[in-house]
């Protein structure tokens, strides 16, 4: 599905992967923590091929956030956040302190939220907990798959602000998958555009925004013309034909 993809992500850098549904952005993300294995080629994390990593160790060193957070419904907020530290067998007191630290960091008062259940939280709160959980063991790499996709626009922009503030402090390597170009421009240091399994653009938001490549422009256009947000502009049939399968 993915073909001929090459991308390097620096420490402290946020790369936003954008593209339509089926363009391969989630596949690319899952290759990084070996949820799927590449048929060919190599994924290198911290200077080492992922095939050389123990997959369990690799994943514990990689934060993972998905749409609607994927919190464990049978665990409290604190237990959810504490999963990876517990797997790594941190001492109990350190785990408790870390949970409170993370809750504070994502803007949730520990005393109020620690013992809540996931279904008692709003969508935005769940996403904050998901982020805290991903950051719990201080991973060097953070993978985020549509993390803000299920939120209303106001909550989403609040969380954008929150994310930027956190990233400014933590400086993690982040791969963020989104289908929303505006979100990619807002959060990404670089924006990579995937089209039918290939990266057709990968540069700073300023450069991507002005790309003349029609495959990129088709994604950028709705964001620049605010009035048409939410509508899909028809793609010229000629372009689809020329790209092939």
């Amino acid at each position, binding site marked *: 599905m993915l073909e001929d993809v090459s991308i390097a992500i620096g420490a402290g850098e946020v790369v936003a992967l954008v593209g339509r549904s089926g363009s391969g952005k989630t596949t690319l993300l899952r290759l990084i923590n070996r949820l799927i294995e590449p048929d060919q080629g190599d994924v290198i994390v911290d200077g080492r091929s992922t095939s050389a990593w123990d997959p369990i160790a690799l994943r514990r060193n990689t934060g993972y956030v*998905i749409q609607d957070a994927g919190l464990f419904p049978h665990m409290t907020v604190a237990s959810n956040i504490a999963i990876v530290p517990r797997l790594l067998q941190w001492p109990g007191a350190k785990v408790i302190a870390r949970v409170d630290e993370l809750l504070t960091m994502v803007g949730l008062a520990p005393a109020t939220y620690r013992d809540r259940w996931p279904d008692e939280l709003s969508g935005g709160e769940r996403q904050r907990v998901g982020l805290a959980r991903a950051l719990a063991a201080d991973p060097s790499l953070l993978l985020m798959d549509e993390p803000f996709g299920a939120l209303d626009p106001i909550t989403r922009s609040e969380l954008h602000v929150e994310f930027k503030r956190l990233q400014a402090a933590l400086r993690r390597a982040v791969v963020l998958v989104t289908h929303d170009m505006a979100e990619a421009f807002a959060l990404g240091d670089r924006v990579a555009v995937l089209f039918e399994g290939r990266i057709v653009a990968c540069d700073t938001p300023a450069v991507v925004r002005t790309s003349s490549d029609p495959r990129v422009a088709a994604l950028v256009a709705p964001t620049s013309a605010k009035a048409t947000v939410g509508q899909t502009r028809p793609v010229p049939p000629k372009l689809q034909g020329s790209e092939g399968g």
Partner: protein
Amino acid sequence: MSALIDFIASHRAEFIARLGEHVVLVLASTAIAAALGIPLGILAARKPSLAKPIVALANLAQTIPSLALFGFLIPLPFIGGIGTRTALVALTVYAILPVLRGTITGIQGVPATVIECAVAMGLTSRQVLTQVEWPLALPSIVSGLRVAVVIGVGTATIASAIGAGGLGDYIFRGLAMVDSTVILAGAVPAALLAIAGDAALALAGRIADPRRRSRSAVAALAAMLIVSTAGALWASGLAARRDIIVGSKNFTEQIVLGEIVAQVIERQGLNVERRFNLGGTAIAHQALISGGIDTYVEYSGTSLTAIFNLPPSTDSSVVFEQVRDRYAALGVTALPRLGFNNTFAILVRAEDAERLGLKTIGDLNKFAGARAGFGYEFLERPDGFKGLTVAYGLQLAGQPRTMDLNLIYRAVAAKEIDVTAGDVTSGQIEAQHLVVLEDDRHYFPVYDAVPLVRATLLLKHPEIGEALRRLEGAMSAAEMRRLNYAVDGEKQDPFQVVRAFLDKLETLYAKP
């Protein structure tokens, strides 16, 4: 209701033992079903290609009627035979499906995104199972167990038919005696047990759900488990102190005969366990051969035809000798005949017999316009009605009516019919003022009552053989009818009826 309480109070020790057996059956079979069904369910949930055949198989097992399943298991080695082990196998078969379903539903119901997150966070597949899938599936697994327990309590009542004891003993005994108090003594506690089991697991379900877990619920469940396990073990321990197991088939006369054998042995100072109400000749025979019971009373004609597949005969001594030899080869001793022959009896009203001077079956030709009515089987079998008319040259008015066996005695008394074929020893004969016409041409095969005892037991306890030999010829058909009527007609307790009978016999023996 007060009759029920009186009955239970007067059978306290036995009742507790039966209840204990029942609880042990249900607890053990549910535990085995959980031990098999939960891992199988997890496997099936992981590999949907396996799920279909596994569930189909469990479904199929569920559709087998329970008595048929017990019957099917009896001849099998290791898991078969009669008694607790076979009952456990059958109950486990029934309990597996709900456990399996609950497990599969529970595991498959865990959201894919939750599993994905668990894997992506670096849980090993074992940790995904124990920390994520298991706790999320647990409420569904527990509800599967609840269904299994409720089914188990119900099905375990049928286990009585293969000698596994339990509350079913009372239900079958009550059915045989047409005594609703005895039926209720089994049915009401069984229903309460089902409710209690369901409540206990509902509590377990609350504990399984971390949102509603509470210290008091854990404590209550632990207490219930401890009490029921300890109680059940204690109760089945009561039953364990016995030297001899006496069996019987599942109708009134058999229960009375079983009680007679049991009390005769008890009067020798031995401990007796009663395994009455075995569900048929084949089961009782199998139990005797396999050592599930040590003794029961069989009818010589039944042994001859139903067990040894030999043609019926009308000569009492010939039948007895044939049967005795064949039992000897199986390690079973046939003791002397008790005296009565439980064969077919041609019955008329006593007033007609007197008026017309009817003594033998042949005299029926003096009964002009007599209308006959018989049970379906008697009309159909060649050694029934057809052969009878030939043997005696009978000329009855019109075709005989087909009637339900339980109604024939009353139908004659009510003058709906004038002649019927009943059971020589039926308590209804005297109760409905009927008389038996003599079979002077020896048309009907003989069914003499014969106590059967395992030979090894007689070697170990020769006093049992001696005591039972003293019953030879002690029981006439009239005596058996009286005992049957006391239980069936007058609703007396078989234990008391038999005790009075044996007391009377002893004074008779003491006289000369």
